[in-house]
């Protein structure tokens, strides 16, 4: 089956197997290994990508379902000039990263939230990240990083 979709701003046309998952298309066929596979059943959020503005688990989507959509992965966040997205910058500055495995998914969930709401409350941040598990940090710094990113984004918009 042939599919067409936007991936991090570029148009992709590719041939896929019917039963291939979106996650495997990204990692195996397209070499975008920033998106991680944790549990493979939608529990951990390590595979989170943004499809048409919404955070989803790419392990629970078929590649075929990406046809006609606009997809963002962690690889698309850093601009061609090498400038990091505020969420990435804040995760580093606030020490939100330990082992790092959950971070691409965590960042995509945070970006999806901040794209819709640049002044989220702590509760809204927690709700947006509730589908992302981190076994290292205890979440406190992750939430602080998202708050920090939100303030940078608000500042940039002024």
């Amino acid at each position, binding site marked *: *089956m042939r599919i067409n979709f936007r991936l991090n701003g570029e148009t992709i046309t590719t041939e896929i197997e*019917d*039963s291939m*998952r979106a996650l495997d298309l990204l990692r195996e066929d397209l070499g975008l290994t920033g998106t991680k596979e944790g549990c*493979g*059943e*939608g*529990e951990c*959020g390590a595979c*989170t990508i943004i499809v048409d503005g*919404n*955070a*989803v*688990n790419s*392990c*629970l*989507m*078929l590649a*075929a*379902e990406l046809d006609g959509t606009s997809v963002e992965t962690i690889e698309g966040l850093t601009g061609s000039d090498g400038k990091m997205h505020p969420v990435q910058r804040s995760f580093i500055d606030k020490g939100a990263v330990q082992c790092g495995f959950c971070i691409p998914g965590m960042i995509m*969930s945070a970006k999806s939230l901040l794209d819709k709401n640049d002044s989220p409350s702590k509760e809204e941040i927690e*709700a*947006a990240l*509730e*589908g*992302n598990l981190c076994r290292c940090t205890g979440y406190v710094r992750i939430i602080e990083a998202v708050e920090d990113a939100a303030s940078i984004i608000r500042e940039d918009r002024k």
Partner: protein
Amino acid sequence: MTFKLMIPNTEGELQQELMDDEARILAGGTDLMVQMRSGKVAPTRVVSIKKLERLKEISDLGERIRIGAAVTYSELQRSHILQEKSPILLKAIRQIGSLQIRNRGTAVGNIANASPAGDAVLAMVLSEARVEIMGPKGERHESIESFIIGPGRTTLSTGEYIRAVVIEKTDDWQSLFIKVGQRNAMCISVASIGVLRKGKEVRLAFGSVAPVVVRAHKAERFFTREGIDGTKLGEFVERCVESISPIDDVRASSWYRRQVVRGELMKIFGHPDVGGTDVT
């Protein structure tokens, strides 16, 4: 996990595809993908409903609301009709999975999956939902309570699919949804309790404590007839507990589940300070 994927453009084509016994419908995929990966189900054909625009509609039918088979939980949460007219469904949806799951999963999928722990199913049971089924013999309607017959089992036969679910508006009822689980996000409940109350009328449903989500019809009639003052409260709670038949499983024991239901009901209906008005 190897199958042929079909993406019909019309409901007629969908029906054709479903004449194959081995076909399974893919809506949000949040249950089916997991079941296929684990080998629990191994369909030879998977039929995606993503191109069927009519299945994505939420419509206001006056006293009732119709929710198409492809409507996601997140779309329901954003819907003004649901926000205004079905607080109980929104309270239940808020407890489902995570944002990522709610962005893909569908309420009708929750019905088709027929899990005794279905949170949206529980709210729809309380909302006297009717399931709209299309099949080779035409359209039929069935109450959600008779449609779901066991864990993972419904009355759907070959060629049939759920086109929509129609729920009652319940904004004039006080509503409460309680999910007792081991953590907040992504949790399958140990027990869940939903209550709708309007004066002397009450509706009660329980999840994860029987082979299907159950309504406590006998206890509801007792409530209306006898009330819950004094010793009546204990009698009422026991009638509720009679309606459940919990099992021991990895999440909790049968004994614990009964105690949870009993304890929560006493809290909801018997709290001395609120005199049973803690249903908001």
